[in-house]
């Protein structure tokens, strides 16, 4: 009985160490992915980094059930997206930041910078006009050059659904840019 308990404890300890090694190996890639997804929602480095940290800490607790790499990436994307949405909705500082971004004082001096700010504002206005399910598909397709299959795997959706959502998103963006 003692031998069995020792063997079980040894198995659990070695499983723990394996999980730690896997987590350490995937941390740079996963932190980048979680940060970019959060940034697409929050557009603030500090807030996006906070969300990425929270997401990765939770992911570490869930690693036992998320051993499959692709499942873990999908879980990270959905978790960081949801946490960023919650943070944006509840954070009062967001309003202050948006007001500061639209004030004339923030206009840079060079013409290129002005153009960049205008384009950036136009970009995010267009993206924000999309519904959430269309927006996440467009954002994920823009992160790290994900193709349709990769986006479908991350969201746990059929590829046909992702394709139709991308098509619908482009159609809506075209209408809003007219």
């Amino acid at each position, binding site marked *: 009985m003692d031998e069995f308990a020792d063997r079980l*404890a040894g198995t*659990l300890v070695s*499983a*723990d160490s394996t*999980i730690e090694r896997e987590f350490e190996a995937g*941390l*740079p890639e996963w*932190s*980048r992915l979680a*940060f*970019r997804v959060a*940034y*697409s929602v929050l557009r603030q*480095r500090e807030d*996006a*980094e906070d969300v*990425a*940290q929270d997401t*990765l*800490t939770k992911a*570490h*607790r*869930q*690693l*036992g*059930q998320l051993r499959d790499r692709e499942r873990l990436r999908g879980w990270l994307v959905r978790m960081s997206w949801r946490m960023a949405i919650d943070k944006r909705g509840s954070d009062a500082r967001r309003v202050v930041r948006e007001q500061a971004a639209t004030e004339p004082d923030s206009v840079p001096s060079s013409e290129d910078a002005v153009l960049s700010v205008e*384009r*950036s504002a*136009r*970009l*995010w206005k*267009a*993206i924000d006009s999309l519904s959430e399910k269309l927006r996440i598909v*467009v*954002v994920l397709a*823009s*992160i790290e050059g994900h193709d349709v299959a990769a986006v479908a795997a991350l969201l746990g959706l059929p590829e046909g659904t992702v394709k139709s959502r991308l098509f619908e998103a*482009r159609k809506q*963006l*075209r209408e809003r*840019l*007219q």
Partner: protein
Amino acid sequence: MNQDDRIEELLNDLDAALSVEPSPAVAAKVRARIASEPARGWLTWHRPGFVGQTFRSAGYAVVLVIAVAAAYLMWPRTTPAPKVPEQMSSMAPAPGPIATPPVPDRPATMTSVASSVKTARTQPARAVPAAREPEVLVSPATRLAIAQLSAAARDGRVTAESFSATPVSTELDVITVAPIVIDVIKIEPPATNSGGGGTVR
């Protein structure tokens, strides 16, 4: 610039906007937060895979209980012999003693039955003791015959003389065998010219 070009430009801007890299401090902060978390014990609920392990263990326990129950139910067990003496003791006791007929070559079965009847008569409602005579199974017909005999003895229809008056023939029957008579067989010799033969008797 047409609409498609503007869409492509917009999506290119999105690609560029999302090409941001997190600061290296993110990974370091994550490591620090994980290290600062309390050590997970064996049975803490937030242990990775704890829920799955719990359900798996419960499943093993259920299978074990079912196996033990099945083995218990299927295990062969010895059943106790039926209590025949109780059946014998339920017979009505006779009021007085009866004489046991002298039967010289009684089988062992009959001896035991007679003693059981005697015991039932003298101690009608007593429980069968632990150390008792060997049990003898008696057929229903035999039991009925004994009961009838007991009743007849009680009524006086059967006495010791009834048994002794019956003559018992111990001699063997003689079978008379008639004498066997065998006729003489005559064989005639074949008729030949050489002669020299005669009658053979």
